[in-house]
């Protein structure tokens, strides 16, 4: 695979075949909790993309340094602290200097600190041995995949509100079964991305 097609493969795999929410089960809480309205789903997802990119950029070089000193086992602690601090810092900076962006994303930022999708993407980048650029692409793909899943699912849920559901299944069970069907639709992409880019 050449560089460009490998890059495209990373992005599309992260968005479609290895979708963070529907295939890797990362970030399920916001997926089930905040997907009721399209607006909130959109805001949350954009904030996730933003934080994923920022934390990947912040932790990649640090991890390189830790590995070179033989301190790889500190990865988890260091990453979660960096992410938590970074999110707080970004929130403060946005609040002070970029009011419009803060109004759009600010309310979702504190929720993202302990979102497993963010720590997940950072750790997966390390595990896969991606370079800095590839890590950023993978994070972008993961974030966009989260956005796609959230948007599709918020559409499914708006239909679910008016559906006639058996009493026992009302609420969370029906939502989960709908998520299962949405996940089936993503299985269809399995061969497609590899077929196009991984020749």
């Amino acid at each position, binding site marked *: 695979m050449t560089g460009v097609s490998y890059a495209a493969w990373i992005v599309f795999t992260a968005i479609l075949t290895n979708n963070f929410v529907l295939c890797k*089960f990362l*970030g399920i809480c916001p997926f089930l909790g*905040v997907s009721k309205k399209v607006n909130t789903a959109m805001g949350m997802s954009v904030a996730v993309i933003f934080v994923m990119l920022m934390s990947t950029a912040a932790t990649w070089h640090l991890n390189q340094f830790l590995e070179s000193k033989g301190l790889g086992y500190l990865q988890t602690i260091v990453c979660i602290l960096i992410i938590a601090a970074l999110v707080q810092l970004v929130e403060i900076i946005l609040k002070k200097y970029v009011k419009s962006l803060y109004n759009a994303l600010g309310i979702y930022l*504190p929720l993202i600190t302990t979102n*497993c999708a963010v720590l997940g993407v950072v750790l997966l980048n390390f595990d896969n041995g991606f370079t800095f650029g590839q890590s950023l692409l993978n994070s972008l793909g993961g974030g966009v995949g989260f956005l796609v899943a959230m948007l599709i699912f918020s559409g499914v849920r708006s239909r679910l509100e008016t559906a006639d559901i058996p009493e*026992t299944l009302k609420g*969370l069970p029906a939502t989960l079964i709908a998520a*299962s069907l949405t996940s089936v639709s993503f299985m269809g992409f399995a061969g497609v991305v590899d077929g196009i880019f991984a020749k």
Partner: protein
Amino acid sequence: MADEKCSLRKEFTKGLLRENPVLRLVLGTCPTLAVSTSMVNAIGMGVAATIVLVCSNIVISALRKVIPGKVRIPAYIVVIASFVTMVQMLVKAFVPALDSALGVYLPLIVVNCIILGRAEAFANKNPVLASAVDGMGMGVGFTAALFCMALVRELLGNGTLFDGAQNLLKVFGDNVLGGFNGVTIPHFTPITAFILPCGGFFVFGVLMALANKISDKKKLPRAELHGCDHCPLSATCSKVVSEREDKRI
């Protein structure tokens, strides 16, 4: 004394059913869905999370008067992350097969909301012993829910039970339980969809419906997920969030 014992027992048993972290409080959904493809993985994950939960509850409860309220969440995260790292190293050393099966989900115990949730809801207000018992109960409840999910998924999706059990049993020596390595159900074609992601959501949904049915019978409120309400961090941010949301609207 008798009273104390009784209340400790209550702390333990509430985690199993009434306040089961997965089926009643809807916490820790990510690992529940991700590692429940095989029973051995589910038990391994459950035990690992329980160890972290008990240890972090003990330490956080012991330090509850020392940690300043304003920085408590970062402090909890450091404590939890330290224990997760220890467990990760132990698993890598003694059960390498489990480490590769759980992959990234093992370090992700750090952000498992059950652990941070218990620290915030219980350990920072209660004495050490009660917190340890609470952690134990929640951990066992988490493991039980994972086990139920994995039982259905492995049986229907792979046609086996306890497949690869030796991976876990190896810790206790070679050939434990006569080299028991799981059973395969004869004359059964597995329905692969159940071990795929969509099967995870489906089985969880059905299990949740079952839990709801029992809750209805016992006149308990149903398990629900209302945006941030259930997030363990809600104490620190959800009020702020809803206030801000109100202002915007």
